[in-house]
């Protein structure tokens, strides 16, 4: 006789980090680090259990407070949620390990910062961010999604300003204002949808919505708001400064996970709620903006002079790929599922590769005190592991054959060509070439002889764990390519394309 | 009776609008702050009238909160702006 419902496993990825965050805040000091590390296996196990249940028993739904959907809030896990949870668990675990070393080294007032225990502040914020992400990926209620979005934003802001530098504060304020505008637009959409349909539950909305003017307005408001929060070109202005000036583990989290949160909501609403006749006329808008983002972000990355800014602009570019899904994935068609799952796979792969790159950039900054690209050769000798990780992650970002990014881009290319979107196909290829171009700027450093070794520069020691965890994450991005088949099968569970397939399999 | 009560409430609202002119024109910060104080008082009265007129007694609680919290901004104001500077045109870069 089970003490609780079996689907109660959905609660733990949210509650475990949240409760730990509270304990870490109260106890403070060294305890926050210990607790933060201790909760990692619990969260990983919780997401694994959720995935295991979804894999074997199909989509899971859990009514919080035992109030079923239209009245209460439900948690819902299908293949897409599980993929996102796994991504969050994986990157979160690596970043946690990395942060132990990173913040141990930076508690002292070394670079003109006021002395404060940044580590003790990092852990509660990060654990709450982790909790907010899982809450977002599991929520099945459009207003609750708004609350999780705000939770995510405020946690991200708190993390960005941890360094306390003027640049960080400025970037944080810009980020906050943009994010607030985005969530208000989203909330306005929620207001219209509740006013018209009297429900907030995604599943009931998906069943009850009819094509009317209010729904179209809601779609537009939510789309613009979420595109702003996901930093889609030309609404990306807030991202590079925020991601570039945050502490390295935070940049990895922001680029790898946080922007995926708002993208996830848009993906879910677009395919689960809004009827096709509304989304179809709009398909080109996000896709074209996505293509523009790929080109513009890559160009900026090509001319960036700091490694972290290069990686941040690369994020702007890679986020563009995600938005191609709205142009390429048609509900109901088989190529639709291919494009949809390819984009999600790309998001997972990007999260790992980009996370690894930011962690590597943080290690370089930590060791050398700067991340100027032209001075990288002098650093590369001291950090062979980190530069190897950069190499591996770059392979993942460029989308060379064994990686998941390759599988994803290849599929997208096929769908684009099959659908007659020659322009998008060209951009997909071009984006890969541009990525190779800007990443080779960094890689070249590893193979270049340092001209004059500046003996005046003092290099700090780097904890081993920082280097190994970075390499681990980079390798995950590489190995994900081999696991792309099971991931795509996982995504099929509960996806908008799954019902006919299940019916075929039944008889 | 209700017509009378609601009429008075409406009249008080018009008073608030008239008071806005003082906030608008200033000229000193003190003028603006004092005019806004008027709204706390008048708002309380409007709420009490509405509570009667709409026969919704819960509105009296709102009136209570209005009356209690209206001074907050004023107290913050007098603590943060020395009276000397607020009295002699301590407003923020007026053109005049």
């Amino acid at each position: 006789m089970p003490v609780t419902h079996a689907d109660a496993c959905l609660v733990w990825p949210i509650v475990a980090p949240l409760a730990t965050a509270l304990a870490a805040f109260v106890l403070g000091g060294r305890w926050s680090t210990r607790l933060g590390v201790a909760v990692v296996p619990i969260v990983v196990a919780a997401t694994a259990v959720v995935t295991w249940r979804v894999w074997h028993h199909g989509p899971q739904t859990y009514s919080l407070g035992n109030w079923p959907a239209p009245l209460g809030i439900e948690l819902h896990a299908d293949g897409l949620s599980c993929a996102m949870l796994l991504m969050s668990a994986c990157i979160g675990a690596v970043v946690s390990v990395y942060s132990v070393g990173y913040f141990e080294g930076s508690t002292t007032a070394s670079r003109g910062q006021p002395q404060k225990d940044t580590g003790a502040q990092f852990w509660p914020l990060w654990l709450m961010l982790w909790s907010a992400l899982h809450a977002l990926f599991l929520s099945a209620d459009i207003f609750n999604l708004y609350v999780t979005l705000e939770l995510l934003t405020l946690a991200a802001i708190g993390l960005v300003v941890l360094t306390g530098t003027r640049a960080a504060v400025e970037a944080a304020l810009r980020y906050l204002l943009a994010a607030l505008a985005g969530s208000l637009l989203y909330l306005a959409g929620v207001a219209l949808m509740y006013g018209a349909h009297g429900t907030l539950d995604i599943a009931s909305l998906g069943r009850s919505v009819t094509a009317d003017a209010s729904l179209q307005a809601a779609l537009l408001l939510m789309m613009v708001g979420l595109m702003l929060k996901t930093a889609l070109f030309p609404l990306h202005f807030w991202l590079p400064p925020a991601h570039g000036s945050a502490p390295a583990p935070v940049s990895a989290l922001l680029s790898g996970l946080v922007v995926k949160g708002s993208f996830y909501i848009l993906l879910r609403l677009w395919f689960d709620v809004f009827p096709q006749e509304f989304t179809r006329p709009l398909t080109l808008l996000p896709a074209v903006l996505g293509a523009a983002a790929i080109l513009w972000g890559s160009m900026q990355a090509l001319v960036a002079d700091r490694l972290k800014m290069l990686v941040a602009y690369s994020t702007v570019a890679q986020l563009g790929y995600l938005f191609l899904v709205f142009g390429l994935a048609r509900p109901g068609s088989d190529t639709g599922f291919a494009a949809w799952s390819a984009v999600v796979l790309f998001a997972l792969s990007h999260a790992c590769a980009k996370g690894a790159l930011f962690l590597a950039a943080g290690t370089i900054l930590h060791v050398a005190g700067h991340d100027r690209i032209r001075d990288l050769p002098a650093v590369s000798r001291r950090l062979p592991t980190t530069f190897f990780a950069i190499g591996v992650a770059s392979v993942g970002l460029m989308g060379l054959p064994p990686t998941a990014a390759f599988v994803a881009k290849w599929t997208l290319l096929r769908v684009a060509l099959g659908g007659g979107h020659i322009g998008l196909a060209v951009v997909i290829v071009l984006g890969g070439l541009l990525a190779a171009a800007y990443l080779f700027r960094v890689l070249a450093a590893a193979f270049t002889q340092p001209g004059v070794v500046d003996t005046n520069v003092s290099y700090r020691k780097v904890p081993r764990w920082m280097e190994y965890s970075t390499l681990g994450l980079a390798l995950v991005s590489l190995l994900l390519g081999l696991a792309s088949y099971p991931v795509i099968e996982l995504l099929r569970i509960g996806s908008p394309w799954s019902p006919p397939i299940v019916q075929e399999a039944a008889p | 009776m209700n017509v009378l009560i609601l009429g008075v409430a409406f009249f008080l609202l018009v008073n608030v609008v008239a008071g806005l002119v003082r906030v608008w024109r200033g000229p000193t910060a003190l003028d603006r702050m004092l005019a806004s104080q008027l709204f706390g008082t008048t708002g309380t009265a409007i709420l009490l009238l509405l509570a009667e007129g709409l026969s919704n007694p819960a509105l009296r609680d709102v009136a209570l909160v209005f009356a209690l919290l209206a001074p907050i901004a004023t107290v913050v104001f007098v603590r943060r702006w020395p009276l000397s500077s607020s009295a002699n045109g301590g407003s923020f870069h007026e053109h005049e």
Partner: protein
Amino acid sequence: MDSSLAWFDAILTLTLVVVALRVLFAQDLFQAIVLFIVFGLLLSLAWCRLGAVDVALAEAAIGAGLTGALFLNTLATTRRHGDQAPPAETIDRKGAWVDDKLPTLRPRPSTPWTGRLAFGLVAGSVTAWMAAVVVPLAVSSDAPRIAIDEAMLRSGVTNPVTAVLLNFRAYDTLLEVAVLMLAVLTVSSLTAGSARVSKALPSGPVLTSFVRLILPVVVMVAVYVLWSGTKAPGGAFQAAALLGAGGVLLLVTDTQSPSCARYLRRVLLVAGLAVFLLVGLGGMLGAGRFLEYPPAWAGVLITLVETVLTVSIALVLVMLFVGTSPTGAEGSARASDETPGATPLVSRERTS
């Protein structure tokens, strides 16, 4: 009766819009903030007219009271000590969002007319577009809503808004308290490094006795609002906002800064969320679900959660106010407390 109410509504909404525009365009920032406080008061009247008394209470306490105090407090920080030059509007020509120059001394028009024109065009078209959608919704007689009547019987409270907030959608509220926690974490991390001490303004006898007189009343009303929240409009947030406002009053008049140990303060800050989580997890015992209350216990548990939440949220609000204060320790030459998470204002302990 209807006609005078219609006039009332018309004047109220018109004033709201005019005040909102003036908040954006008044050249004087102080005026803008005073008008923003007035805006909160008027909005509170609007909630009353719409029958949303719970919202009106929260707006009166948070929207008009505390947010206004936050803004006034922040504006005061832009005046430096002994610097009588008021902060002018900083214009960014390049369209940058953040102007990092300190306020300039030279007064200049806040918005050139081209800016106003663009503003008008954008605001006008968004209004027209959204109005075209909202008007049919607002006049339709078909108003779908979530049915709660049957569930109310098992909710443990009789005020439907409290039932939604703390029972049916308690999960939203849980996350919302987490949002407040995050705000405190961020604000106090920003305060920690840069808190400074300024010379205090002397507090006159009138102010001191006013605060002594009003504080007990504020506490009493807060308890009343909390207690009545289960069956009438009111509840934890409104009560907490009242208590928080009382705390702000106490802080700015520097009579007796309430002091408590840093550790205790942290415990009090998280107590609300922690108890909420524990009650939620307790619901999972005995084949229940997260945040499920047994119907017989629902009323007691909701009251428990609300009471602890009130204390925590009040403290949160006070600390948010501290985070926007111009100086570290107000009212005395106390050294600021540099430890993270500690706010100098509320703390008596000295680290240096």
